C-alpha cells in the first residue's frame, strides 16, 4: 500500500520546483506547499494517478504578520491508500486569489464559498460565489480576517426596522449604524449579487412550476435550515438549500479563547456528538503538544464515545421515524426511552447529559465511577434487545418497506463524488470508516466490523445506523472487559497550554461521518486558527442533487435518512 513518502517522491519528480517545503508528519499525512498557479494540475495529478478521490475540505488561514492568506486543501482517498495530502497555497493579502478546485472535485463548492465569504479570498473559476452562512448584511465585512474589528452591535432591539411588504408580510431588518460603518465591522455598500430568493426564482422556466418552501422552522428537524424545492407537478425538478440560520462563528470565537477554553465550544458544535468533537479537537492539540493519553484514559474515551454513538443513532433514527410517519409518535417515544438509559450511563461518568467537555489534553477529566460496568452492561443488553426488535419490525412492515426501498439511491461512485461520509457512504457499499482508515485511540486493537450495505437507499442508511448501534455495544463490552487500571492523565501535560508553532490535522469517526479538526498554533496560548471539518456539511451539500427528480412525498424520507445536525453545518 502507498505511503505518504511514495506520494511525496512521485509528486517531486512529476512537478520539479513546484513543491516547496514538503514534509511527512505524522506517518500518514503529507504536508506540502504548492505554487499557487500549479495547484489545479497538482491536484489533478494526485486524483488521476494516485487515487486521491476524496476532497475532504479546505482551510483558510489569515497570516496577518506575513501579509499572506493560506488555503490548505485536504485530499484523501476512499480506500486506495491511507494517505492524507494537505496542500498549502499562499496568496498575498492585498489581492487574494486562488484557483478553484470545483472543476476537479464537485464538493469543493461549499468549502470555497465559505472561505470567500469569511476571508474574502477570490476563487478563480468558481461557478457561484454567493454567501452561504452569513446574512446579507455581513457579506463584505470578511469576519474571519484577523483585522475584523469587534462585532456589530446588535444588542439593541429598537434597531430592528419593521416594514410591511405589499403582500402583507412583515419584514424585519437590522440596518448598520454609522459607528459600525466607520469602524469597518459592517460594509457600507453591499456587493452586488442576486439573493437566494432571486437565484431560485431564476430557475423557474415554465408556468406549471412552483417553489415549495420547507423551513426554516420545520417540524422536528434538529435546527433551522431552508430547503426550497422547485416542483413540476409531483416531481422535484431542482432543490435549493439555504443554511446559516444558526451560524455562530464558532471558529472565530475559538481564536479568542485559550486552548482549554475552546473545549466547551467544541461541544456546542454538534451537541449530539459532543464527545467526538472534544476528541477531534483535543487530538489535534495533543498532536501539537506531542503528548499521548495513557491507556486507561484511551479506554474511557472509547467507551464514552461509543455510548455517545449509540444515543446519537437512536435519536437520529427516532426523529427520522417521526418525519416519515408524522402522526405516529410512538416509535420516537420508544427510542427515547432506550436513549435515556444510555444517557444515564454517560452522565454517571461525565456529569452532563449532552454537552460534556469531558476529554482533556492528555487524558480525560474523571475516572469511571463505581458500579459503572454493571450499569452499562444492563443498559447495553436492553439496547441490543430493543434494537434487534426494531430491525425485525422494520423488516416485517410492508408499508415501511414500500416507503423506503429504492428511495434516494446513492450509487457508490456518486456517493464518493458528492463527498458524503459516515453511514450514508457506508450504506452505498464503501467501507470508509476513520476508525479503520486513520486509527486513533485504541481502535486498531479492537475487534469490530465496519457495517456496509449494498443498496444505498434510505432503508439501507437506517439499517446501517441500527447495526452500528449493535456494533458499538460490542465495542463497549470489549473495552469494559479489557480496561486496565492506571492514571487517567498523561504526566507531562503543561499547566498553560502553549504548543510550539505548527499545524495539526486530526480526524475521528463522528457519529455522522468524518470529523476533522485543523489547528494552527503560533506559540501563544490562543490558537491562530481552528477549523472544524464536519460530516453534516458534506451531507447537506449533497442533498440538492440527491433530491432531483424524486416525488415531493419522498423529500423528507431522503433528507431525514441523512440524520442532519444543522448546528454543525452552520458552526
Amino acid at each position, binding site marked *: 500500500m502507498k505511503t505518504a513518502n511514495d506520494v511525496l517522491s512521485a509528486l517531486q519528480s512529476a512537478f520539479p520546483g513546484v513543491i516547496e517545503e514538503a514534509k511527512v508528519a505524522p506517518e500518514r499525512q503529507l504536508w506540502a506547499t504548492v505554487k499557487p498557479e500549479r495547484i489545479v494540475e497538482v491536484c489533478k495529478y494526485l486524483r488521476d494517478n494516485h487515487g486521491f478521490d476524496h476532497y475532504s475540505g479546505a482551510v483558510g488561514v489569515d497570516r496577518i504578520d506575513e501579509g499572506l492568506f493560506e488555503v490548505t486543501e485536504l485530499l484523501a482517498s476512499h480506500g486506495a491508500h491511507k494517505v492524507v495530502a494537505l496542500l498549502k497555497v499562499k496568496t498575498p493579502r492585498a489581492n487574494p486569489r486562488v484557483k478553484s478546485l470545483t472543476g476537479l472535485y464537485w464538493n469543493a463548492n461549499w468549502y470555497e464559498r465559505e472561505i470567500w465569504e469569511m476571508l474574502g479570498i477570490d476563487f478563480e473559476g468558481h461557478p457561484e460565489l454567493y454567501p452561504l452562512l*452569513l*446574512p446579507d*448584511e*455581513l457579506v463584505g*465585512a470578511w*469576519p474571519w480576517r484577523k483585522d*475584523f474589528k*469587534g*462585532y*456589530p452591535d*446588535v*444588542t*439593541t*432591539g*429598537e434597531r*430592528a426596522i419593521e416594514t410591511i411588504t405589499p403582500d402583507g*408580510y*412583515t*419584514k*424585519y*431588518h*437590522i440596518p448598520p449604524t454609522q459607528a459600525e460603518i466607520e469602524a469597518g*465591522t459592517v460594509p457600507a455598500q453591499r456587493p452586488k449579487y442576486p439573493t437566494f430568493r432571486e437565484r431560485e426564482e431564476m430557475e423557474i422556466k415554465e408556468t406549471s412550476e412552483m417553489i415549495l418552501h420547507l423551513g*426554516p*422552522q420545520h*417540524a*422536528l*428537524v*434538529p*435546527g*433551522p435550515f431552508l430547503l426550497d424545492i422547485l416542483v413540476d407537478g409531483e416531481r422535484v425538478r431542482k432543490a435549493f438549500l439555504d443554511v*446559516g*440560520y*444558526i*451560524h*455562530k*462563528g*464558532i471558529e*472565530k*470565537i475559538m481564536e*479568542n479563547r485559550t486552548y482549554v477554553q475552546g473545549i*466547551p*465550544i467544541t*461541544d*456546542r458544535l454538534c*451537541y*449530539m456528538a459532543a464527545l467526538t468533537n472534544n476528541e477531534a479537537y483535543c487530538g489535534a492539540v495533543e498532536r501539537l503538544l506531542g503528548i499521548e493519553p495513557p491507556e486507561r484514559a484511551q479506554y474511557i474515551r472509547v467507551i464514552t464515545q461509543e455510548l455517545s454513538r449509540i444515543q446519537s443513532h437512536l*435519536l437520529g433514527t427516532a*426523529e427520522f421515524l417521526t418525519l416519515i410517519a*408524522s402522526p405516529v409518535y410512538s416509535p*420516537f*417515544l420508544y427510542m*427515547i*426511552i432506550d*436513549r*435515556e438509559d444510555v444517557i444515564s450511563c454517560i452522565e454517571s461518568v461525565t456529569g452532563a*447529559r*449532552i*454537552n460534556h467537555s469531558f476529554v482533556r489534553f492528555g487524558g480525560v477529566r474523571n475516572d469511571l465511577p463505581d458500579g459503572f460496568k454493571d450499569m452499562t452492561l444492563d443498559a447495553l443488553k436492553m439496547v441490543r434487545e430493543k434494537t434487534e426488535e426494531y430491525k425485525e419490525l422494520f423488516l416485517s412492515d410492508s408499508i415501511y418497506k414500500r416507503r423506503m426501498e429504492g428511495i434516494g439511491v446513492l450509487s457508490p461512485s456518486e456517493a464518493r463524488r458528492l463527498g458524503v461520509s459516515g453511514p450514508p457512504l457506508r450504506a452505498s457499499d464503501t467501507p470508509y470508516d476513520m476508525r479503520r482508515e486513520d486509527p486513533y485511540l485504541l481502535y486498531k486493537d479492537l475487534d469490530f466490523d465496519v457495517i456496509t450495505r449494498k443498496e444505498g437507499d434510505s432503508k439501507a442508511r437506517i439499517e446501517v445506523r441500527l447495526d452500528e448501534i449493535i456494533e458499538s455495544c460490542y465495542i463497549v463490552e470489549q473495552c469494559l472487559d479489557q480496561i486496565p487500571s492506571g492514571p487517567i492523565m498523561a504526566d507531562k501535560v503543561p499547566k498553560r497550554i502553549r504548543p510550539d508553532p505548527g499545524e495539526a490535522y486530526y480526524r475521528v469517526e463522528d457519529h455522522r461521518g468524518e470529523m476533522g479538526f485543523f489547528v494552527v498554533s503560533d506559540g501563544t496560548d490562543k490558537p491562530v486558527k481552528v477549523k472544524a471539518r464536519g460530516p453534516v456539511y458534506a451531507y447537506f451539500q449533497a442533498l440538492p442533487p440527491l433530491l432531483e427528480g424524486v416525488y415531493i412525498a419522498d423529500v423528507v424520507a431522503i433528507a431525514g435518512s441523512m440524520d442532519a445536525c444543522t*448546528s454543525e453545518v452552520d458552526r
Partner: protein
Amino acid sequence: MGISDVIPVPVAVDEELEKWTIWGRPLTDVWFTTTEKIHEIIDMGPIKNVLNWGRKNSLWFLMQPMGCCGVEMLVFGCPHYDCDRFGIFPRATPRQVDVMIISGYITRKYLPAIKDLWEEMPEPKWVMAIGECAISGGPFYDSYNIINNTDRFFPIDVYVPGCPPRPEKFIEGFRALQEKIKQRKDKRGY
C-alpha cells in the same frame, strides 16, 4: 343609546334601566355590546380566572429546536419526563401553539423568521427563553452574528438558565409560567 331606540318600550322603563349598573358600568352599555366590551367585562370580573385556569393547564408549545436545548426539548416531551401530565404538549406548527420556546441562539439571519413564527401564533401566547444563548448569548456572547438581548424582541415571561438546562428544568420553567398565568402577572397581561 337606550333600549327604546331598538324595541318599543315606555320611556319610564328606559330611564329606569339607565340607572342600573353591572360591575360598575351602565347596563345599556352591556346590553348593546361589542366584542371589545365583552373582553373588558371579562377582564374585570372573576370569569377571567376561570379562563386562565383553562389556559394554564393546556400549554401547547412550538417544536422548534434550534440548538443544544432543542435536544433537551425533544426529550422533555417524551417518557421519563412526560410533559403531558401538566397539559404541556409539543406541536409542529405555530398555528396551534400557545407557547414559543426560544431554545437557542438567535442570529441576524434567523431573527426575521422567528419573528414571523411569533406573529403566526394565535392569541393568547407566551414566550420562554430557555438556555444561556437565548437569555444573553451564552458561550457565543462575542460572536459577530448573535443577538444578545432577546428580551428586546420578545416579551419573555420565563427565563430558564443552564447550558443546556436539564429536562426537569423545563418542567420547572413551565410550572413558573403556569403560576404567572394563574396570578395574571404575565408580560402580555392575559
